């Protein structure tokens, strides 16, 4: 291990045995809340993107593609590649690296081009 440590996880709450957040290093996070990913509660901290919260929870695959149904995850991290899109609050093709997490946000893995689950 390097210079910094794992952050602890609270047993009994939306728990992820492998929280990949770093602690210390001169920065403190904002308040913690839950988002709902494929029906499961996942921790997020105020200021994090959905992508950051997902990576912290250990999730790597966000969707399967339309043509070959292969898995895809986070690639460029900065909004250029459109690989990390998911269905957010019923709207497909949302770049999770560009959208801020907020309490209760509903996020779903996307299959192919996704389906609208709200009226546009």
């Amino acid at each position, binding site marked *: *291990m*390097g*210079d*910094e*440590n*794992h952050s602890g996880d609270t047993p009994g709450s939306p728990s992820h045995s492998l929280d*990949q*957040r*770093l602690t*210390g*290093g*001169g*920065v*403190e*996070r*904002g*308040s913690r809340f839950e988002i709902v990913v494929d029906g499961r509660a996942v921790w997020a*901290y*105020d*200021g*994090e*993107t959905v*992508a*950051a919260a997902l*990576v*912290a929870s250990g999730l*790597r*695959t*966000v969707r399967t*593609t*339309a*043509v*070959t149904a*292969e*898995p*895809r*995850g*986070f*690639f*460029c*991290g*900065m*909004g*250029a*590649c*459109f*690989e990390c*899109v998911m269905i957010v609050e019923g*709207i497909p*093709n949302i*770049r999770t*690296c*560009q959208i*801020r997490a907020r309490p209760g946000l509903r996020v779903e893995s996307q299959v192919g081009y996704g389906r609208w689950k709200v009226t*546009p």
Partner: protein
Amino acid sequence: MNTRPLIVVGGGPAGIAAATEAATFGLNVTILDEAPTLGGQIYRQFPGPFRVTDKAALEKEFERGASLRAELSGVSSRVEVLGETSVLGIWNGRELRWSRNGVTGTLEASQMIISTGARERSIPFPGWTLPGVMTAGGAQIFVKTYRVRPGNKALVAGTGPLLLVVSNQLRKAGVEVTAVLEAAKPRFSLDRLTKVWGEWGLLNDAWTYWRGLRSAGIPYLFGHTVFEAHGTDRLQAVTFGKVDLEHWRPDRTTAKRVDVDLLVVGFGLVPNAELTSLAGCRHEYVNELGGWVPTRDEHMRTSVPGVFAVGDGAGVAGALVALEEGRIAGITAAEQAAVISVKQANRRRAVHLRRLASLQRVRGVLDEVSRIRVGLSELARPDTIVCRCEEVRLSTVQAAIEQGARTLQAVKLFSRLGMGACQGRTCEPAMRAHLCHALGRTAEELERIYPQPPVKQVTLGELVRSGGQLGVQS
């Protein structure tokens, strides 16, 4: 129509420097950026709710970004910052369509400075679409900005100084870095190389990074690169090996396999020249600057009157060059708006023109080290997906060539390459190199996959919810 005296598109180092100079001389400036706060990729800030408790523990880049922003704050009465705002396109030279919070609208500028930065150059290889394969810039954002580990055991591959930075950041974050693979094989030692990078200013802390890796016992393998990523649902292992010195052709007989859950790839940067293209600026292909770039005069003016281009988006050259270019454009914009005299402008510009000239002299070394070589095109196999969005395989591109395609546009029409959500940003640079090699044509002869508005995705609903007023709430 909302008309602004000066709009700066992109709030990285070049944009901040440009806005600071123009506002200092009394011009009102509007800065648009996709991020919530200014800084660009290199001086990206922590998210607002994060609190810095110990500045000394942060990297030096944090301090550099903070001092640049402080300079802008000094003239804040004349600066309007519009964050989380995408520019979808530019029409008639200086009229732009923006999108923010689900609403779109139009702004017109008397003058415009385009400073849209660069993105990473991707090289396709078998398995590169697997979750767990990530660009160097992406890995940096997770580790540096959000302080999240993107994996537990990593291999880093590519070329250029960014590899040194990202591998060291991963190490400090507690990621086990098995090795760093640098395709180039410089004629001089890394000790000397880090000194050159340091002097060039691209990587002031190069020596510190290098020492960090050495003390952790992480091997830095020159003349090596990634051959293939393995895994079913996510990355499980990587095959890598040696490349030849001159062309970087993979030598498959040297292949080794290592189990990792993170592969970080960084093969340099390419300019984001979409908006300068849509603004109608003339472009030229300059390999050393990363690809197609707007032509400019020495005061950063493009071929379209009133439109400037500065920073990595006008040619990849790093933050120090971006700052000087931004300042020159800002001063010139003030001069053209007649808020300062020609004489004042000349005096103020002189120092930045001089600094820019001296930076250009040392950058040749960097070009030589990280210029992408043709052998990397051999990494992809016929069944390798080269266009990630449309899932186009290399074999389909080869079929297009057999059918007579001789330009990127023809390949696009045949195969859907570059027609997906990213509009070819990811696949075009590597496919240009591939086609140059396969067809024996120059980049100019291949032409480009021309950007189309909207350059960032927008829903029809957002386009309908138009006419919003920007800046009222800021």
